[in-house]
């Protein structure tokens, strides 16, 4: 029997999925509606145990599909309830339709995404595309570098999403298998912390008995645009709310986060930029290169939506060349998700680096230290070129 870790203890060994399940148990949401999918299964399995052993008060709705999972989350969240779910890959794709509605209805549902490559071919391993394709849904989107960060993101997601200025759903990713199934030491939090950090959700117009409010209405060309613009304003508000939430979390736990994390960037001439679990290896490689005298740093993008453009522009203003490593795909586009966003962001800045794109780790392909070193060398080689440079698929079998 798996016991939920709801007390503040010293570091406990947990996989990323276990960490998320335990964080959800500490939060003790009103409703969890979920459907199992590899590599997310451990989250719902553990949470089911917590429910059936009476360790949480949550209503667990074990639905028949992810489409219904997100639909039930929406139905639960419109009543003002605190709602959590988790999914991955095909599951997120099946939810896609309802993700937009959750955001437009301004429902702070929290979803953990055990990032996995999308079919076809069918593949169960780590890749961030399942989450990057959700960039236009209106969800706040974060990634995790470690099981600890996935654990912490569970709390942060509720804090950010439920803020009255934001009131948006939040998804956070943890790379499939690399984080979901790898055992790490995680410092847990307790319910006292939750009581303090996450006071009860306040909803302005809940769908509850005696409150005759209609929501989810048909908006035609005369109003649709204004509704959508309000979502953009909410995203803008999130830019202010997120750093404050990170700050408060840091003060209370000693673990500080930023929308981006700069690593060895003080005097860096070259930078590698990435998201999710690749960040850890990138840091290791940066340390290794630094030992050889290379002026290199790295930036981890933690919040993918809202995209931290200003922060990135500031961090990269004195950098000459950047290699962006995307563990996600798009076809026939100028480049993958992070690369495209970064390049678009920096275009109008006077002081901006050259940017080169790399696709790596697709379908769970290992990205080795040598691959990062190769990427770094390529960035140095390409620096100064005036020709367009295609995106490199790192480690592609020829």
């Amino acid at each position, binding site marked *: 029997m798996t016991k939920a870790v709801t007390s503040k203890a010293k570091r406990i060994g947990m996989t990323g999925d276990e960490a998320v399940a335990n964080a959800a148990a500490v939060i003790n949401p*009103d*409703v969890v*509606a979920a459907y199992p999918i590899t590599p997310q299964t451990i989250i719902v399995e553990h949470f089911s145990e917590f429910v059936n052993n009476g360790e949480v*008060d*949550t*209503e667990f*709705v*074990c*639905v*028949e*599909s992810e*489409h*219904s999972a997100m*639909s*039930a*989350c*929406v*139905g*639960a*969240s*419109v*009543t*003002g*309830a605190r*709602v959590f779910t988790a999914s991955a890959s095909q599951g997120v794709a099946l939810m896609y*339709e*309802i993700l937009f*509605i959750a955001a437009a*209805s301004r429902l702070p549902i929290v979803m953990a995404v055990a990032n996995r490559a999308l079919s076809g071919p069918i593949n169960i391993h780590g890749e961030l595309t399942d989450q990057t394709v959700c960039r236009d849904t209106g969800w706040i989107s974060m990634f995790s570098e470690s099981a600890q960060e996935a654990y912490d993101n569970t709390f942060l997601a509720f804090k950010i999403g439920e803020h009255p200025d934001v009131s948006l759903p939040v998804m956070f990713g943890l790379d499939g298998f690399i984080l979901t199934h790898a055992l790490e030491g995680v410092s847990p939090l307790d319910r006292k912390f939750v009581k303090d950090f996450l006071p009860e959700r306040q909803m302005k117009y809940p*769908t*509850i*008995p*005696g*409150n*005759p*409010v*209609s*929501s*989810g*209405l*048909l*908006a*035609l060309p005369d*109003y649709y645009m204004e*509704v959508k613009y309000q979502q953009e304003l909410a995203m803008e508000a999130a830019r202010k709310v997120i750093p404050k939430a990170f700050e408060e979390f840091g003060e209370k736990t000693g673990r500080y986060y930023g929308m981006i994390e700069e690593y060895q960037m003080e005097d860096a001439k070259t930078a590698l930029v990435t998201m999710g679990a690749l960040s850890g290896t990138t840091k290791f490689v940066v340390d290794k290169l630094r030992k050889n005298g290379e002026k290199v740093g790295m930036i981890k993008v933690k919040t993918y939506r809202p995209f931290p453009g200003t922060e990135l522009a500031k961090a990269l203003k004195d950098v000459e060349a950047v290699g962006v490593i995307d563990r996600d795909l798009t076809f026939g586009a100028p480049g993958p998700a992070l690369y495209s966003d970064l390049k678009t962001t920096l275009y109008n800045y006077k002081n901006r680096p050259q940017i080169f794109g790399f696709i790596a780790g697709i379908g769970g392909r290992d990205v080795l230290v040598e691959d990062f070193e190769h990427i770094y060398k390529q960035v140095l080689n390409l620096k100064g070129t005036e020709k367009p440079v295609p995106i490199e698929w790192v480690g592609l079998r020829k």
Partner: protein
Amino acid sequence: MVTKEELKKVKIPKAKELIHTENRLAPGHRLCAGCTAGTIARLATLVTDPNDVVIFHATGCLEVATTIYPYTAWKLPWYHNAFENAAATASGAEAAFRAMVRKGKLKKIPDIIAFGGDGGTYDIGLQSLSGAMERGHDFVYICYTNGAYMNTGIQRSGGTPMYAATTTSPAGSVIPGKIQWRKDLVAIAAAHKIPYIATASPAAHRDLMTKVRRALDADGPAFILVDMPCPRGWRFPEKDSVKVAQLAIDTCYFPLYEIYDGKEYVLSPKSKAIANKPERKKPIEEYLAAQGRFKHLFKPEKRTDLIAKFQEALNKEWEYLLKLVNL
């Protein structure tokens, strides 16, 4: 726990009391003239306590026509999510209310009604409905069936009658409209062994309201299939909506009955009268002839072969229902 016998005794207030009850669906909505969806919604919500009910809605005629931003015709708490997920949405809300009751934030789980059309129920929403019924959520799903995707312009659904002309099953020179029989959605619901199922009609308004109240009082999921004559899609004069609904009962195309616990079938008064006096059963031809969607069965020449085939299939269905009732 409400027992089956208690459920059968559930009665609604007398008409003289109900006429003083405020409508929960305000006038000024944009449903078509003669549309019975509004009638059904009004009748169904009239037997609820406005302070103890929550409505969820699938995308469809009734949803679109009653809630065009910034207006709403609903005087009840109301939420629309998407087309195929009214049941899943309601099940999430029911779970939330259950959690609130446990935490002492709510006294009881309110009455929950999910409305969906035949497109959103027979077809795209069937999985969501099946899942919610299997999980046993305490809510009522009301499917108002007008036998096609009327909201998007009369396209065929799994609930469209055989030979009906729709825009995706037109009456062609080779194929005479939809060639398949409608799906037996009630039997599918019954297979879930839920406590209460009924069919209802705007032509039997007190019967409809009683069934809604029984469905709401049942512990667990309940399902009601309501016939919803549509002047636009069925091609009949707006004044004839209830008449057409009555014909559906009289010809046994839409018999009225209840199912308790997924196995005890009980005929409702109007259909029971036909079962008792079979000579009262009208030929299906009368029903078909009343609607323009079947006009190709009568013009340019009368297709007696097809009408006979329809009658034969219908007879079998009615006889099978009588067997279930007499089990």
